[in-house]
């Protein structure tokens, strides 16, 4: 704490100052409504495009529309894991409490996204493949991702000393990063039942323009939702873990 404050006094003023929970708490509070508005805006636009504008798929009929929630949820589950591991790693290196709190706050939403991806995948798989679940590489690796999230949460929850919990779970998060590229490339490396990537940076997307827009809008919606929920959760964590500090005792929300 004192170290981060010293930093902010004579070097790179803004960023290091925000790494102190007391400075970040009010900022997060101001940002939350902004991200909720964006979530709603992108969500409504995305749902409208995906239900009314995007054409019916030539092969899969109306059933393909679950892609608009399935693919963004899968993206987010992988991306949130990377962000979580990055925060955890930062916390390990610079010994900042807020980074570890961010990692802690990201874990449940990431686990939820992984679960959502598996769940919607099952609903999509039943009509298209005729099975709720198949043991192919992408499904299995996504399931492992869910287990990694749950392991991270469980490890944190069972260590009483918060500083030790931060570091131990950070190591676990960093080890688990190995899994993310495996999930992403699993449809390329193995011959799987799961269809290949529909969107890629290097070649033209294998789908209609409006479908792509629907998917991107929904991805943005889930992205903003994840940020909003994470900020809300990190504020709760800050209050809980900084309960001994004066600024928490004097803050209005705690008093009322």
């Amino acid at each position, binding site marked *: 704490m004192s170290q981060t404050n010293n930093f902010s006094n004579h070097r790179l003023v803004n960023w290091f100052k925000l790494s102190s929970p007391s400075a970040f708490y009010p900022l997060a509070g101001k940002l939350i409504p902004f991200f909720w508005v964006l979530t709603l805006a992108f969500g409504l636009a995305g749902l409208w495009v995906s239900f009314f504008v995007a054409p019916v798929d030539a092969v899969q009929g109306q059933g393909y529309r679950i892609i608009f929630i399935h693919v963004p949820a899968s993206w987010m589950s992988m991306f949130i894991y990377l962000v979580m591991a990055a925060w955890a790693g930062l916390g390990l290196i610079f010994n900042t409490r807020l980074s570890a709190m961010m990692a802690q706050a990201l874990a449940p939403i990431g686990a939820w996204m992984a679960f959502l991806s598996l769940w919607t995948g099952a609903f999509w798989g039943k009509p298209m493949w005729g099975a709720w679940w198949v043991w192919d590489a992408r499904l*299995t690796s996504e399931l*492992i991702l869910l*287990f990694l999230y749950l392991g991270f949460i469980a*490890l944190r929850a069972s260590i009483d000393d918060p500083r*030790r919990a931060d570091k131990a779970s950070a*190591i*676990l998060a960093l*080890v*688990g990063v190995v899994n993310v590229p495996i999930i992403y490339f699993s449809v390329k490396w193995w011959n799987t039942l799961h269809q290949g990537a529909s969107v890629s940076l290097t070649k033209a997307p294998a789908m209609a323009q409006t479908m792509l827009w629907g998917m991107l809008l929904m991805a943005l919606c889930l992205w903003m939702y994840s940020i909003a929920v994470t900020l809300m959760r990190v504020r709760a964590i800050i209050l809980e873990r900084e309960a001994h500090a004066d600024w928490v005792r004097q803050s209005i929300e705690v008093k009322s």
Partner: protein
Amino acid sequence: MSALLAMIRRDLLLVMRRKSEVLTALFFFVVVTSLFPLGIGADAALLRKIAPGVLWVAALLSTLLGLHRMFAADYQDGSLEQLALSPQPLVLLVTGKIIAHWIVCGLPLVLLAPVIGIQFDLDASSLYVLMGTLFLGTPVLSLIGSIGAALTLGVRGGSVLLSLLILPLYIPVLIFGAGAVYANSVGLDISGHFSLLGALLILALAFIPWVSSAAVKIAIE
């Protein structure tokens, strides 16, 4: 190097003084694998088919049984702290502990596997492949497991948590290990499986001792 050998020797000596713990894990392996034919029925064709998976899952679980012991006793009596304070690099000492764990919990499984395999009516070439995959795979299990063992030191419900943390990370080893035996039985090329297992072993050997010793340092600080 002498520190590494001394560490291995010490851990093996400790195990030899109390054999029951090791024998429990081996007995578990034998009993679990013997339960499957009893539960599923003695259809030889079916047993041959499930043998690689059953043997590998049983190997996973029985290495898990011994993992908890890797650091826990030393953590409780304080010798782990002394090891961390010693002038020898902790990475080396942790590596020694991992190797000792493999000699005690992994190597016997490699040697026992053909005996169990015969119960499942595997032919000679499948037994060789099974032993080969276990020989490459069980060190990876000990290495990955050491991370979990170090992270859960002195934690409430540590051994249950250990399995939750470690089993998902074991899955690649399981897939390629059991996959090689299956591929061999249907006449496919198995060199790919062995290359991947070897790659896993090399990567694990190169990185995991550092990760585990970092985790040990977190536990004792």
